[in-house]
């Protein structure tokens, strides 16, 4: 057995380097982060052979004096923190003083740097040792070149993958950084070919457009929300577009690119009931939390963070994304989209108190009994005739009091509701829209555990198949919560004594029969999924159908209720409830542009 010996510091550095620099992409990331920490406005990255031959990062940052350039290669040499206390809320990307020595220990490294235009320093090193220091003339800034990465660490080299695979990682890392720092100009080349050149961008959307094209940017909705001390912003894919192009995710926390499946999952939860099973949306999110509520120093590559209270952050993200999906802008569009984000329905802030007298004026759908508002007093003389049953007039004046402004609506093919909007023409699918309204209402009832239920004079009798009987048993308590009270279930016959009253056209018997027919044969689902499944099925069966003629009042009531839902633009099957045709698109088609 060999004798025990202290490792030379060079070997120890090599081992530690494995943690900081696993592969070319991580070296690129470290060097670019150094450039960003140096305050660079423009960074050029050149990579050869997937980064295995050469990685060169040039910046126009603050540069280094000769002493600093040499010191930078020492382990734990950093200009960014001085004591452990500085770690809390650290703003720079770097803070360990590990990256340069680690890269240096496994490559041929050249640092050229100048703190001002003119006289600069070039430091040559290999395998961790400085081999030469020279004067150079250069502009302010730093260029770091790392050649032949892992040339002296065969074990590491063995684990490198092919050129294409390594290059893909480099591109991915650089894409994340570019999304994170849209204020900085980047250019990236591979073997002399330009991968991207990105001008400084004003918005994340602009940067996305520069990276992936305007089409990709169009598919994304703005996310912007503040919940307590948590600020969530970014872009989320429009549900109607999900699945039509490759999925991209990006997450930053307090300006640092991180991986966090919990947060992404929370954002995805906001899409629940708008997507077909199995589809996952693209999400680009920036989360800002108070510095003291997050710890960034838990991962060697700083790719993960630890939250003091993760639940709060996840809920804030979920809410923010749901809010974005709830805007008008979230609906599907034909051709060019020019919708002003958040437009179309105006809602008061959550803290505004409002009575809603408006829906009193609506007949049909949302008001069971016609005529009772029309109060013509009549004397109690024997034999006197009560007043004519008058139909409620739609009084325009009440719209002033409404919290949603309803434009003139037109029903098409007894299926769609059309209206004009500042940005174009909008079509609403009446069934899908009503389904969405009822779904959210039923979910609320299932969650609160109560729903109004109307006792019936004559109980409904339903004859069930064995499978429907099973479906009924499985959903019995949920159905009761929704308002279907059943007494006496004798194997194949249901006697229903009470039914819900979601709207005046509601046909309880047909709804229950069709719901059980649909649920029959459903395999056992988890309790939560069963809630949603039942609410969605009952909503589908209870909603007005395509082909139902709607009165003006009903259309308006539907419009208002839809605007009040959380996700108005999507039905419960992941289809659109709203389709828009923008004026520019129309103008384009008519050759007016």
């Amino acid at each position, binding site marked *: 057995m060999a004798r025990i010996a202290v490792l030379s510091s060079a070997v120890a550095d090599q081992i530690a380097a494995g943690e900081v620099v696993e592969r070319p992409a991580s070296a690129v990331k470290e060097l670019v982060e150094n450039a960003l920490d140096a305050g660079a406005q423009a960074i050029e990255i050149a990579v050869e052979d997937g980064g295995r031959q050469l990685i060169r990062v040039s910046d126009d940052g603050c540069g280094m004096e000769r002493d600093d350039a040499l010191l930078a290669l020492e382990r734990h040499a950093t200009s960014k923190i001085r004591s452990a206390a500085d770690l809390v809320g650290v703003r720079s990307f770097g803070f360990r003083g590990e990256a340069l020595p680690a890269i240096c220990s496994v490559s041929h490294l050249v640092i050229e740097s100048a703190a001002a235009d003119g006289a600069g320093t070039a430091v040559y090193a290999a395998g961790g040792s400085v081999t030469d220091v020279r004067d150079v003339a250069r502009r302010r800034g730093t260029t770091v070149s790392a050649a032949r990465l892992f040339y002296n660490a065969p074990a590491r080299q063995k684990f490198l993958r092919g050129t294409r695979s390594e290059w893909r990682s480099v591109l991915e890392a650089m894409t994340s950084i570019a999304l994170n720092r849209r204020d900085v100009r980047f250019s990236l080349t591979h073997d002399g070919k330009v991968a991207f050149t990105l001008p400084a961008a004003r918005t994340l959307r602009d940067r996305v457009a520069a990276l992936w094209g305007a089409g990709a940017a169009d598919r994304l909705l703005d996310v912007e929300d503040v919940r307590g001390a948590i600020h969530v912003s970014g872009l989320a894919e429009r549900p109607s577009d999900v699945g039509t192009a490759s999925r991209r995710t990006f997450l930053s926390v307090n300006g640092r690119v991180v991986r966090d499946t919990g947060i992404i999952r929370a954002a995805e939860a906001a899409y629940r009931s708008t997507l077909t099973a199995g589809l996952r949306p693209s999400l680009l999110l920036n989360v800002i939390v108070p510095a003291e509520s997050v710890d960034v120093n838990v991962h060697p590559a700083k790719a993960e963070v630890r939250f003091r209270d993760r639940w709060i952050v996840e809920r804030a993200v979920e809410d923010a994304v749901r809010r974005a999906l709830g805007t008008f802008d979230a609906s599907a569009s034909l051709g060019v989209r020019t919708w002003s984000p958040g437009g179309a329905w105006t809602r008061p802030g959550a803290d505004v108190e409002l009575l*809603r007298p408006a829906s009193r004026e609506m007949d049909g759908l949302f008001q069971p009994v016609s005529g009772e508002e029309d109060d013509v007093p009549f004397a109690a003389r024997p034999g006197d005739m009560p007043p004519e*049953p008058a139909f409620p007039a739609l009084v325009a004046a009440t719209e002033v009091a409404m919290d949603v402004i309803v434009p003139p609506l037109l029903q098409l093919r007894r299926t769609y509701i059309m209206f004009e909007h500042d940005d174009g023409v909008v079509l609403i699918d009446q069934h899908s829209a009503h389904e969405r309204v009822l779904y959210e209402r039923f979910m609320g009832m299932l969650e609160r555990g109560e729903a109004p239920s109307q006792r019936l004079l004559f109980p409904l009798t339903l004859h069930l198949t064995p499978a429907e009987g099973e479906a009924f048993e499985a959903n019995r308590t949920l159905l009761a919560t929704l308002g279907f009270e059943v007494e006496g279930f004798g194997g194949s016959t249901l006697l229903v004594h009470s039914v819900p009253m979601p709207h005046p056209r509601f046909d309880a018997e047909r709804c229950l029969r069709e719901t059980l027919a649909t649920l029959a044969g459903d395999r056992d689902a988890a309790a939560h999924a069963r809630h949603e499944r039942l609410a969605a099925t009952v909503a589908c069966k209870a909603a007005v159908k395509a082909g139902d003629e709607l009165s003006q009042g009903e259309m308006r009531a539907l419009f208002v209720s839809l605007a009040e839902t959380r996700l108005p633009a999507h039905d419960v099957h992941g289809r659109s409830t709203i389709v828009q045709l923008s004026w520019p698109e129309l103008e384009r088609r008519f050759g007016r542009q």
Partner: protein
Amino acid sequence: MRFTISREKLQEGLAAVAASIPAKTTLPVLANILIETSDKGIRLSGTDLDIAVSTEVAADVETVGAITVPAKKLSEIARELPPSPVKIAASGEQRITLDCGRSHFKILGLPRDEFPAFPSIRFSESWRIRSGDLQKLISHTSFAVSTEESRPILNGVLWELKPDVMRMVATNGHRLAKMELPIKATGAPSADLIVPPKALEQIRRLFPADEELEIARGENHLGFRSPFTAVYTRLIEGPYPPYDQVIPKDNDRVAIADKVALTSALKRMSVIASDQTHRIRLSFNSGMLRFSVQTPDLGEATDELALRYTGDQLDIGFNASYLLEILRYMPTDEVRFTFKAPERAATVQPEGWNDSATYLCLVMPLRLVD
């Protein structure tokens, strides 16, 4: 066909028939009105295939004949004519000319053969009923019919004709209205008829209250006629559900309230009640009715009303709009409610009504959740 008619008589006849003309139809002739000459003048008829209305007005007939013309256009013209006699003449099978003062019209129509035949009803075996009595039943009950498509029987009003009494019942399964009236024995046998409310609306509208109507039944149609006007309607096939079984006989809690005060309290509560269910809670105690309403996302409200109440304390939920609607039809200043339990039917009746008719409404409660 050629006749002269006063502008007023023409307008009167058209107004009576116009309401039976469908607004939209796939059968073009249904948008037309049938004009036929008769012994006394002319007969105007219209139908939507469910209901047919026909009325006779005085006119000077020169030559007999018949034709159909667009109802809407003819009504519009009649409305705008100068106050002079109107001369109408058919020129061929499909066109009329209309002259009035110096105005002259030619209107295209359709041959009379295309107009659907009226159901054949023999009035030899008929009931004779004062139209005012019938109208009274209609206006107190037909509001309660159902509009749900899956129970077409409840879309009609049940009209029970017995030798000495007639009764109308309508319900949508949530609330029910029933009125009965003694009548003089008439010749025809007892019958249970289920009549579409649309037809009853015409009866209410067209006949003067003191006219005696002849009513007769065909295969599945019903005909009403007075000396000048006739209404035919399709009947809905029964049987009507056994409504008598669901009218509670043993409700032992009784409340008597002032109608106006109760109505205004209910209206106040309705402001906060949910738009979908209009649910409110009523708590009856001796001498006091307490209202309360809570709607998630909106707010809550309470109110109180002194009334006479006998029975144990009771908490019950209702659709406020059902109660308000029934109160509108109650003919007395005070109304009597009876209850049994929070999940059982409540009844509403006029209190101290000095009338030969008896009137009862029934409301099913809404589930209350605590």
